[in-house]
């Protein structure tokens, strides 16, 4: 099997998640240990001026991580991954993760790929997370 050779400008395989749900925010709070009530308690979030509960930024980062590990496959490794949280995600939002290759290097039997990655929400296609990731995949 010949591995895919990445070129600058290539898109990663996008990932569209099911709409974010309030139950999911409760589950992520429990699983991550982040119990900030702005993610789970409607009254609290309204009082904080947010108009309702918002998703954990780290949940959206987790979606982008899923796109990356799907792309990388089991023989590859994620080397670095960072994002800025640029807009809020609310229950009902549909998040699509995507990425574009910026640089490809060859090192010791691996291709080392650096890409811009992001997540955007629908409706509106507003970017909610913006970042970069570097991964490596075996050349053969």
């Amino acid at each position, binding site marked *: 099997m010949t591995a895919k050779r990445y070129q600058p400008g290539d898109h990663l395989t996008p990932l569209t998640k099911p709409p974010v749900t309030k139950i999911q925010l409760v589950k992520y709070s429990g699983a991550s240990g982040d119990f900030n009530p702005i993610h789970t308690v409607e009254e609290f979030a309204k009082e904080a*001026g947010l108009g309702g509960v918002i998703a954990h930024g*780290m949940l959206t980062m987790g979606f982008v991580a899923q796109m990356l590990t*799907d792309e990388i496959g089991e023989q590859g490794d*994620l080397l670095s991954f960072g994002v800025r949280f640029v807009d809020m995600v609310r229950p009902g939002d549909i998040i699509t993760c995507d990425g574009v290759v910026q640089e490809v290097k060859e090192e010791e039997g691996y291709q080392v790929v650096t890409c811009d990655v992001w997540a955007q929400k629908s409706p509106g296609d507003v970017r909610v997370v913006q970042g970069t990731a570097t991964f490596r995949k075996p050349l053969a």
Partner: protein
Amino acid sequence: MELADFERLLGVWSKPVKNEVEKGAIRKFADAIGDPNPLYHDETYAAQSRFGRLVAPPTFSRTFDYGVIPGLEMPTEGLIHGEMSYTYHKPILAGDVLYASFALTDVKERAGKLGRMILLVFTYKVENEAGEIVQEAKSTVIYRPEGGGAK
């Protein structure tokens, strides 16, 4: 806490805390994200992979206990998570015994459109029992002392 209070704590590391990576915790975390990757869920599958055990997703280290920085009192309101980044050195696998610690490594005050902001950069470190670095992370948290905003 004010800028000067944070500045006094720069570079003070928490005492590393032992964290045992549980397979149930990995499954629940992947489940909350909605990531069906069999490496996170299926022990038999993972056993036949090059990892040999269930693998933790890339942001799983968020769940660890990183201990306490003596003197640091983080506000619980008016915080916004601005940035998060990871450098991965070794995979985190179910059954791993890891030591996690963190420090405040940068602090700045800025005047923003919505008032005064304090930018706090925390550096997180995860090491294995052999003392090898497994993962490093940096988190930027924006704190508005006058309130407003959310994490």
